[in-house]
């Protein structure tokens, strides 16, 4: 890997993101259109300026026509990518590589997901084997990690539940301030602690919802970005670590840390030239599909070596030293799978530009922001990371 090959070569000149939530009135095409046209307007361009596109969805469609049909693109090179919950970063990464090598100038990256039409509690089942692993659930798979993690670290059930509840309360607080979030409602610690159990030890408020939404980025070479706007945002680097998916079965895998996440972070920090993420990052959008995931990711991303202490000290709150999930994260902003990575970047992009909708949630002096959705579950993760940065010239 040549870590410097991508840094600052490509910039985001426009972004769009639909309201996340139970979008009963919109189908996936509607959400794609809404995200795309917000991004066009933001970049000051129109559909005819797009030269190529990457689109992503996990459960809501397939192939390039997923994008070309609603947006009426005529004969463009469009590729559908899928990498589970990391899909939103994957469309951007593939688009950025294409622009960086000089094949295209103005490229769209779109992620969209329509989950609320399935009528299911939770996600559709991705497992295809008739008996092995079938019938398992996403919270159940993360709960296996939680049970082991807390036991191995000698953290009592009460302490553990409290730490997880604090993450949920923080993310709901942040979501309540974010106009496009699925849940715009504060919750109390007591509510979180007394919620019904979904998959022990995870309760209702430890789990993110299923959500509809779409998010979009328009990119071009940094050398051209000024043509479109002054406050374009630089792409600093990516990380993607697809593990061998054998942790649940690996006798040596201990559920105490997330090796894939650590590996992806190493790649991304190298590409972005980050030495001390806790000091250098202004914000981090992480994959809080379940609160235990956010807790374990603090450590895996190198943001702390003692997550429980930092949760207690409020390090990751909006007012803290390193705000994590300032828009509410998956927990409160929602998780339309393939849209999530781009939604995270939308938050960083707007925070860097000083356009975080409400003054209460605008962070100060935002220079670098990390986004990390990760597919799979402990032992079988595929974390995808992107890092965006402010123009320093």
């Amino acid at each position: 890997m040549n870590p410097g090959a991508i840094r600052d070569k490509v910039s985001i000149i426009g972004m769009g993101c639909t309201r996340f939530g139970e979008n009963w009135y919109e189908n996936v095409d509607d959400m794609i259109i809404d995200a795309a046209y917000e991004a066009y307007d933001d970049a000051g361009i129109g559909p005819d300026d797009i030269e190529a596109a990457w689109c992503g969805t996990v459960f809501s469609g397939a192939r390039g026509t997923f994008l070309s049909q609603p947006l009426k693109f005529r004969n463009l090179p469009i590729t559908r990518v899928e990498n589970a919950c990391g899909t939103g970063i994957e469309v951007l990464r593939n688009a950025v590589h294409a622009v960086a090598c000089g094949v295209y100038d103005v490229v769209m990256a779109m992620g969209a997901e329509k989950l609320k039409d399935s009528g299911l509690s939770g996600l559709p089942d991705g497992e295809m084997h008739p008996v092995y692993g079938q019938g398992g659930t996403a919270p159940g798979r993360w709960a296996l990690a939680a049970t082991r993690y807390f036991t191995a670290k000698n953290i009592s059930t009460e302490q553990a539940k409290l730490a997880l509840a604090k993450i949920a309360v923080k993310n709901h607080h942040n979501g309540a301030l974010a106009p496009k979030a699925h849940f715009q409602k504060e919750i109390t610690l007591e509510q979180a602690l007394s919620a019904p159990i979904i998959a022990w030890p995870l309760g209702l408020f430890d789990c993110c919802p299923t959500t509809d939404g779409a998010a979009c980025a328009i990119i071009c070479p940094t050398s051209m970005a000024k043509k479109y706007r002054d406050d374009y945002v630089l792409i600093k680097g990516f990380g993607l670590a697809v593990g061998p998916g054998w942790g649940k079965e690996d006798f040596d895998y201990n559920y105490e840390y997330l090796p894939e996440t650590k590996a992806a972070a190493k790649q991304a920090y190298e590409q972005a030239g980050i030495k001390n993420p806790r000091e250098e990052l202004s914000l981090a959008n992480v994959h809080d599909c379940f609160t235990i995931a956010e807790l374990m990711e603090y450590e895996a991303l190198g943001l702390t070596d003692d997550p429980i202490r930092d949760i207690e000290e409020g390090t990751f709150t909006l007012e803290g030293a390193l705000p994590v999930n300032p828009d509410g994260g998956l927990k409160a902003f929602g998780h339309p799978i393939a849209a999530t990575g781009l939604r995270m970047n939308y938050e960083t992009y707007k925070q860097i530009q000083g356009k975080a909708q409400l003054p209460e949630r605008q962070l100060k002096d935002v220079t670098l922001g990390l986004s990390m959705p990760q597919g799979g579950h402990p032992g079988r993760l595929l974390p995808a990371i992107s890092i965006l940065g402010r123009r320093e010239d």
Partner: protein
Amino acid sequence: MTLGIEAFGAYVPIYRLKRQEIARAWSTGAPPGEKSVANFDEDTITMAVAAAMDCLHATDIGTIDGCYFATNSSPFTEKQGAALIATALNLRREVSTIDFTDSLRCGTTAMKCAFDAVKAGSSNKILLVVAESRLGAPRSEFEQSCGDGAVAFLIGNERPVVVVKASYTHGDEIFDVWKGNKEEFLRTHEDRFVLTQGYFANVQEAVSKIMERQKVTNNDFAKVCIYGPDSRRHRELVKKLGFDLKTQVQDQLLNEVGNTGASLALMMLVSALEQSQPNDKILLASYGSGCDAFIFETTPEIGRVKGRLGIEGHLASKRYLASYEKYIMFRQLMVTDAGRRPYLVSSPTVLWRDRKWVLGFSATRCLDCGRLFFPPQRVCYYCRSKDNFEYVPLAKRQGTIYSFTKDNLAQCPDPPEVFATVHLDDVRVFCRMTDRDPDNISIGMPVEMTFRRIHEGGGYPNYFWKCMPMRKTADAVKESK
């Protein structure tokens, strides 16, 4: 003559339902005791595998060349149970698999055929498994009386612990107890007719003939194992036959297990063998469309083998079903809300291709670095050696819980569904947990493996292995007394 039984074992599901609880549901009087109830993930196939494992725990299965399965309550009317059981047990390919069914005495009929096959030399060792989970209609006497259970025997002529001295059989035609192929529940005719012309007449005839031919008298028998539809009729019959109820007649376990149909007399036999001394004579008689009778004699080897848990161990390890409603749901007699989770799918192709690990529960061991994998892997995760492995069966291994969750979102007839990663010595297995008390699961807890139904996607049972808390061994039960 050395033809006989070389090993034996049994299985009784962990759940019991108090007859009082059934009576509560229907506002009727309660017969005494309780009955055993198969968990929602059990059927006669899974119980047969459990009984066979109990029987074969110390046997070299490579010597077995027959697998006979007898039941009146197979999950299939056309599809062999014996072949499925043989595959789950990793018996070798050239095993004669046969199902016996459609009669209350199909268990003893299968036993007779096994003796005959070994005697004739066409088989050397035959595994015989008899399992029953007969369904009585809600509010019927059958619902109160029928229990679930299984037995297994290894039939051979090398080192029997009990030899067969004589056998007798006759067939008879009568509508006593039956179930048509479009009927879900057992039916019976007016009981005085059934008893006098069916049960009493047939068993008396068979017992008197076999004793007469063998020139034995009542006092020669240490134990008498005779099928009986209920305790009162059973007592009445053995009195007619002149056996001493207190010293000779083997308890039917009707108050602990219930009427296990084709398994019943054979479960009594296992109970008797568990307490036998060398050179005990035992009389066995079943009933159903005629009668099979046998005279056995234990050998000096009788103390040598016994089931890992046997009847005694399985009886000592039990949990009560909380309610009749739960029983009704376990037997799928009530339509319940399925929840809003994805449909469970299946594939006969995949189940067939993966039968070595789905049914036979075999891991692979990398022959380069020695590490084990479940499910089997072609490329070693540790040393990346390719296609250099051997299969290692895991079903007998015991282990501990490495991590677990109690999942209320997962579809399960008895939530929460417990998923666990389990360490079976040096291999990790991800599986469901069954027969568990949700309030009593912890990391490090000892577990063993059990063959169960996972779901019915595709409209048929999809079998696989689950872990469960260790059931105590018969020896441990004795110590704790």
